[in-house]
């Protein structure tokens, strides 16, 4: 049934996700949530890649591969980020981003 879904829908979806992600990153105070917003962005990207590949350039698989790599790297990124956040939490006992401003000016 995918035939009767145009690429536009995918693109709209991905774009929405992208901006939701950005929005989330900017407004959510919880570090973990901000990380999730980043994930949204990355997934929007993945959708883009796959959609483009499927609809426009089916002859090769660059898009798909790219998406996979993105997923993998996103995983590592999240891993490291979480680790750091935890170590931070150990010290200041909060993951509210607004508390994370010892260094300024």
């Amino acid at each position: 049934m995918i035939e009767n879904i145009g690429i536009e829908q995918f693109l709209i979806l991905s774009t929405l996700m992208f901006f939701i992600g950005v929005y989330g990153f900017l407004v959510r105070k919880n570090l973990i949530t901000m990380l999730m917003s980043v994930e949204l962005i990355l997934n929007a990207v993945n959708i883009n890649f796959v959609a483009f590949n499927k609809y426009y350039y089916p002859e090769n698989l660059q898009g798909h591969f790219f998406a996979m790599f993105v997923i993998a790297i996103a995983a590592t990124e999240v891993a490291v980020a979480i680790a750091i956040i935890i170590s931070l939490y150990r010290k200041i006992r909060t993951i509210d981003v607004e508390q994370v401003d010892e260094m300024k000016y």
Partner: protein
Amino acid sequence: MTTDQFFLMRHEILLVAVGVIVLVMDLMTTPATKHRIIPVAIVLFLINTIIGFLPIETGKIFGGMYRTDDITILMKNALNIGVFIIFLQSAEWLKNHEEKFNSYGAYFFIVIASLVGMDYLISSGDFLMFFIGTELATIPIAALVAIEKAKIKSSEAGVKLILSAALSSGITLFGISLIYGTTGSIYFAEVSKVFDGNSLQILAFIFIFAGVAFKISIVPFHLWTADVYEGAPINITSYLSVISKASAFFILIILLYKVFYVIPEIRNNILYATSILTMTIGNLFAIRQQNLKRFLAFSSIAQAGFVLLGIIGGTQIGFASVVYFLLIYVFSNLGAFGVVAAISNATGKENIDDYNGLYRTNPKLSLVMMLSLFSLAGIPPVAGFFGKFFLFMSAAKQGYFILVLIAVVNVTISLYYYLLVVKAMFINEQENPIERIDSDMYTKIGLAICAAGILAIGFFGTIFDFINSKAFGSM
């Protein structure tokens, strides 16, 4: 694909080898003998650096995904030298923070891993490699930034770095995806053929540019820099401010002039505006800083602004002078950071006022510091002068006289705050200045190398001629 092709990646392979060896040997050490790994790692890395200079043929592999030519090799060697100096400087720091590390091998391995990322980034021939390189370069560093478990600042810096890096890479990726969508390829070569500069591609281009600009910390993508630099362990700070910056600049040039070269006026306008912003903002912030790491962070932002002048020229000379400047910048900045590191390792003092009367007690350190600062400020006869001069020259050749004027005025402002440090060290007096420091041999060697580089590079015009003969010859 044959092995000898495979060995085009000699730099990366060697690095990985060094990393693995260090890691393996590290497993054999006991807590009592773990410090022995330090000399081993340093020597191994030195060997790797030397081998890097051996001649090697160039070419593409993985269908153009990875490509080397003389200039990339040159760049990688420069980075090697830089990292080598950083290792030398970090030895003392490592010893001081024994409790933090149950093994030192991890430290070296992580740095080397990130350096591998840089190398891949430099020789990336398509966006995938570009993306992988960037992440591989950034993520380990984020871990190292946060390594000082005891300090809040360290973790805070780590958080700030990793999160904003994630955001920026997200933005970059979105741009890449759009490029892929509009051109149907992720290979630089093909993209550049198809790329025609319609508004969607412009959007994509700017997204990608933003991602790189983030790494170089160009205004307005620079705000993370100061905090991360301050919070991070000082050697990591120097790594961030020198190595990752240099590689990012390199790739920026590739992107601007190999991939997106069909939209010159947009490119130039963006560069024009951002470079003015970058150097001015950087300077204005640097003026007030007391913490030297933060100070150097802002000064390095300003320096980035100057480098853009070389890029905006867009000529052979321009790129040559950018690479030349980066080479000098490695030595100057590492010299400055080295002194700061030596002092903060010995006394934990990192503020400018602490340096009052330093010359009385530590003349050598202060001299190296002065040389480095003068080199950063672009004062003859030290190398920095030539680097800056050629950057401005290449911009002037393209007729950007106003831009050059603004830049030079900024140089004057920067001179002001560099002189503040010199003043503290040489002119100001204080009751109890920092007592006599005798750093370990590694630090001394590191600083000596920096000083030698700062003093020498300017006088051997052949270095520049060499770079110029290699620089992006293919364009």
